[in-house]
C-alpha cells in the first residue's frame, strides 16, 4: 500500500506516536512532523482529508483530540500524460485509520490520548500487526488483538 509513516498527534501538535516505514534521521523526522502537523492542524472540518506534502500524500482523520496522520507515496506528483496510478487508495487509507481506531477502542475501551501515551508499546504492537513494510497485512480486529490479549493474560 505504500504507507510511509503513521503519526498520531494531539490538538496541540504534540506527537503521541510515530512509526516510520522508511529510514529518516531524527532531524528529518522532526522537520517532517513539524511541517505536516502545521499543515493538517490548520485545516477545518469543511475541508477534505487529503493533503499533499513534498513527495507524500497525507491522509488524516481527527478523532476527538487526536489526529491520525498516514503518509503514503504520492506518485501523482508527476502529472503528465504518463501518470502512474500506483499511489495508494486514499479511501482505503481512511478506512485503515478507522480500523486502527476501532481496534484500539476495542482494546482500551473508549480509547483516549492518554491510553496511547501510557501504552505506547501496545499501540506499536497493534500497528505492527496491521502493517508490515508499509503494506496492510491484517484487517481483522480479532486477529490484530489476539497476541496482545495473550500477552496481557500472561503478565
Amino acid at each position, binding site marked *: *500500500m505504500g504507507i510511509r509513516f503513521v503519526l498520531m498527534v494531539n490538538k496541540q501538535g504534540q506527537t503521541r506516536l510515530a512509526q516510520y516505514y522508511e529510514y529518516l534521521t531524527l532531524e528529518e523526522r522532526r522537520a517532517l512532523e513539524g511541517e505536516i502537523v502545521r499543515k493538517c492542524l490548520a485545516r477545518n472540518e469543511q475541508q477534505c482529508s487529503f493533503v499533499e506534502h513534498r513527495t507524500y500524500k497525507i491522509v488524516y482523520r481527527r478523532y476527538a483530540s487526536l489526529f491520525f496522520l498516514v503518509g503514503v507515496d504520492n506518485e501523482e506528483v508527476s*502529472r503528465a500524460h504518463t501518470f502512474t*496510478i500506483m499511489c495508494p*487508495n486514499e479511501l*482505503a487509507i481512511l478506512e485503515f485509520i478507522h480500523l486502527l481506531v476501532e481496534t484500539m477502542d476495542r482494546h482500551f475501551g473508549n480509547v483516549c490520548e492518554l491510553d496511547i501515551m501510557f501504552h*505506547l508499546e501496545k499501540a506499536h*504492537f497493534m500497528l505492527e500487526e496491521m502493517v508490515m513494510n508499509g*503494506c496492510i497485512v*491484517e*484487517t481483522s480486529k480479532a486477529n490484530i488483538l489476539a497476541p496482545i490479549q495473550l500477552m496481557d493474560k500472561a503478565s
Partner: protein
Amino acid sequence: MSGGSGGGGGPSLMDSLFQRTLDDLIKGIRIHVPGAAQSTFISKSLDEIRREIKSTDLQTKSTALQKLTYLHSLHGIDMSWAAFHAVELTSSPSFIHKKTGYLAASLSFRPSTDVLLLLTNQLRKDLSSTNQHEVSLALECLSVICTPDFARDLTPDIFTLLASSKNFIRKKSIACLLMVFSQYPDAVRVCFKRLVENLEGTDNAQTLAATVGVFCELASKEPRSYLPLAPEFYRILVDSRNNWVLIKVLKIFAKLAKLEPRLAKKVVEPICDHMKRSEAKSLVFECVRTIVSSFYEYEFAVKLAVAKIREFLLDSDLNLKYLGLQGLLLVAPNHSWAVLENKEVVIKSLSDVDRNIKLEALRLVMSMVSDDNVVEICRVLIGYALKSDPEFCNEILRSMLLTCSRNVYEIIIDFDWYASLLGEMARIPHCQNGEEIEYQLIDIGMRVKDVRPELVRVGRDLLIDPALLGNPFIHRILSAAAWVSGEYVWFSRNPFEIMEALLQPRTNLLPPSIRAVYIHSAFKVLSFCLHSFLLPNKTANSLSKFADMEPDFIYSESEGEFPETSGLRPHQEFNPRDLSEKNADNATISSSSLKNDTFTRESVVNMLTLILTSLSPLAGSHDVEIEERVRNLFGLAQLAQEEICCHDDRKEMMVDRDDLKTSIIIRLINDALSEDFGPVSLSAQERVPVPDGLVLEENLSKLDIICADVQLPKSKSFSLVRPSLLQMDGDFVSSRQNEEESETSAAESTSLLSEHRKRHGLFYLPSDNNQNASTGFQPANDPNQKDNDVEDLVKLTEESLVLKRKSNLARPRPVVVKLDEGGRLPITVKKTQSTDDLISGAVRDVLLGNEASSQSNQSGKPSSRRRGKALSKVDQGSESNNNMENFEIGNSSKRRSKHRIHGKDKKHPSPGNDVEGRDENGEVNKQKSGSRHGRHKARQRADGGINVVVQKPVIPDFLL
C-alpha cells in the same frame, strides 16, 4: 524518586529499587511545561537512563530502554548509543523484555548501526523458535531494519517459515519478503516459488492479503515479470470478496494491462461488475481509477466510470469530491467530454472553501486549456484570482503563466492579448509571481517581434503608474517593463513620457539593481531621442539596416500572421515611432511631419534638463551599478546639452547637425543599441562536444570547491554569446543533420580550453595566449562582453533563432552530446533501478522454473492444466514468446546458461540494468566475475535447498 540522582558510576541497588517506571517518566513530562523545564527534566531522566541501562538486572535494563524508546520516538532524543543494550534485551528469555528490545531496535536502528551484525544470530534463533510470537517479533523487526547482510544470512530461515503451518507466521514472513527482496534480490530465486504458492492457495484470506500486497509492490516497479501470474490474479479478482485484496489486485491489473492489451478485454467485465455492485467507496474509486487510466479504450466502462465520478463530485462528502476531481483529471487526456459534462461542478469547485479541492479544480481547468479557449479560460481565471485569497490567487496566476508558456508559448496565438494579460496580472494586488512575469515579458519580446509595440504599450502603462512603485512584489515586473521600453523605444508613441516615468522621484523605492535597469533604459531612450532629433534621416536608415539583418523572425506557431508583418518590419521609409501606420507610404509622410512635431528642440532640451536635475543626486550613489550608469547617462546628456544650446541659432540647418560631436557619438551609440537581442538556447553551451583528447576535470576537480563561489552568475533571461560559439552551434547542427555525428575540431578544443582558462584563469600560468584567446570560445554569459559584441549579435540571434525554430518544429530532443550522457545520471537512480531489475530478472528466472515445477508437482490442478494446454499456443509479442527459445533445450544446465544470456540480451535496451555486473548486494563496483560466481552459488543453494526440479519450463497462456 530521587534514587537516580545519587552516585556516579555504575548502577546501584538503589537505582534498581527506586527506578522510575515509564509511567513515572510520562507523568513527569506532563507535569513540566514544554520548554526549558521539560527539557531539563528530560535530560535528567536521560542521565538516569544511562546509568540504569547498564544494570545487569534485565528488568531494570528493560525499563530503562522502554523509557529511552519513548523519549526517542516522541521527543526526538538520540538513542543510537543504546543500540547494544537493545540487542542484549532481544536475547532475554522473557518475552516482554524481548519485545522491548525488538521495538527499540526497529524504531531506532539504521543501516549504519554498528551492532547490527550482533543481532543476526538472535534473529535466526527467534525465527526458528517454537513460540510463534517470538517468530513474529523477529519478522516484524527484520521487515524494518533489514540490510543486505541480514537478508542474505536469513533468507533460508524465512524460506522455511513461508511453508509454516501457522497462518500467523506465514502471513508475516510473506510481508517480510518485500524488504528482503529489495535488499537481496537473489532471495527471489529461493523464495519466489513459495510466494506464488501462497497466491494459489485460496484457503486463507490472511496470507492472501499479504501475498497480494507483496505482488502489488513488486509489480509497481517492474510489472512485466508478473504477466505470467495473470491467471491467478484474475481468479482473485473474480472470487475474492475482500475489498483490501481487490484494491491491490486492481492496481496490479492496471499495470499489467498496459503491457498486454488482450488482458484488458478479459478483466474489464469483472471490474465493471465490482464498480456496479460494490458498496465500498474505496473499491469503487479504485475501479474507476483503473478503468480511466488503463482501460480507457472501452467506451462502456469509461461511461460507467464517469457516471461514478459524477456521483462522487455531487456527494456531500468532501473527500469524495476531491477524489472525483482527481478521477476527472485522469480521464481528461483521453475523454475530454467527461470534463465538459461536469464543467459546472469543476468551475464551482474553484471557489470551494478547501484549498486542496480548489487546487484540483484548477489543475482540471488547466488541463482543458487549448489554443481556442485559452483567452476565455484566462479571463474567467483572472476573475477568480481577483476574488480569491492571496495564496490561491497566486496559485492561479502561477498555473496560468505555466500553462501559457508551455512549449514556448505553444497555445498562444494572439500575443498582443497575452502581453496585455501579463500587464493585467501585474496589477492584481496579491500578485507575487513577479519573477515569472518579468521573465515572460522579456522572453516574448525577444521571441516574438510582432508583440513589441504592444509590449511597449503595456510597459508604459506600468511605468507611468507611480502607485505601483510602492509594491515590492512587482518591482521585478517593472524592471522588465523598463527594459522593454528602453529596448524597443522606437515603438513608443511618446518617448518623453517614458523618460519622465523612468526618472520619476518615486523610483528611489526600487532596489538598486532594478534602478540600474531604469537608468540604463533612460540612456537608451535618450540616445533614441537625440538620434531622431539630430539625424532624422538616418533614423530610418539605421532601422532598416536592423531590419535587413534580422531574419524573418517570428514563432512558427504564429506563422499565420506572416503576411501582416511585412508592414511592421521597417523598410527604408519606415516611421520608427508609429507602428500603427502599416502603410509604408503613409509612414513616410507622417514620419517627417510627426518628427518635426515631436522632437522639437525645446522638448529635447527639456528632457536633457530633466535628466540632469533628477540624476544629479544619484551621481554619488554607493551602488556601483547605479553610479556607473548614471555617469554614462550624465555624460551624454551634458554633452548634448552643451552643443544643442550653443548651436541654437543654427537649429534649422540639418546639415550641420551631422557634424556635431554629439551626432557622431549618438550615431555610434545608436548603431550599438539598435541591434536586437534574441533568445539563446540554455543548452547551447552544452551542445559543444568535448574533444577527444581533452580532459577537463582530472587535475582541476579539486578546485571546484574553491571555485564554487567565484563562478559566473548565469543570466536567466538572455545571454550574449560570441560568434565563435554560434559558429560552432551552426556547425554542430549541420553535422547533426548530416550524420548525427559530433565532430570535434581543433578550433573547438582550443576554444574550450580558452573558456576554461577564462573561468579558472587564476590557476593558469600567465601567458600571451590569454589575450589571443578571444578568438575562441568565450563564456556565454560574460557580462563584460555586452557592449563589445554588438556587431556579432545580429548573426547570433539569426542563427540561434533558426536553430530554435527548427527544434521547435520537429521537437526532437537534441540527440547529441556525449556531454549529456556522460555524467548526468545520478548514481542513486542507477542503483535503485538495478535493484528492481535484479528482482525482476530473478523473478523471470524463477517463474520459468516455478511453472515447470508446479506443473510437475500439482498436475492435477486445473490451473496448471490450463498452462499445459497453453503450451501449444503460445502467442507472440509478449514475455512468453521471448522465452520460447528455451524450450528445445532439455538439459537443465544448458537451459539455464542460455537463459541467462538471453535475459542479458533482453535487458540491454533499458539503461543501467547491467544485471550481471551487480553483485549480490546490488553494489555497482564489484567485478563481474565475482558477481557471477556469487550468483551461481546462490542458485546452487537455492536449487539444492528447494529441490526445484527444473526440467520442462511451461509457459502459461495467461489469457486463459
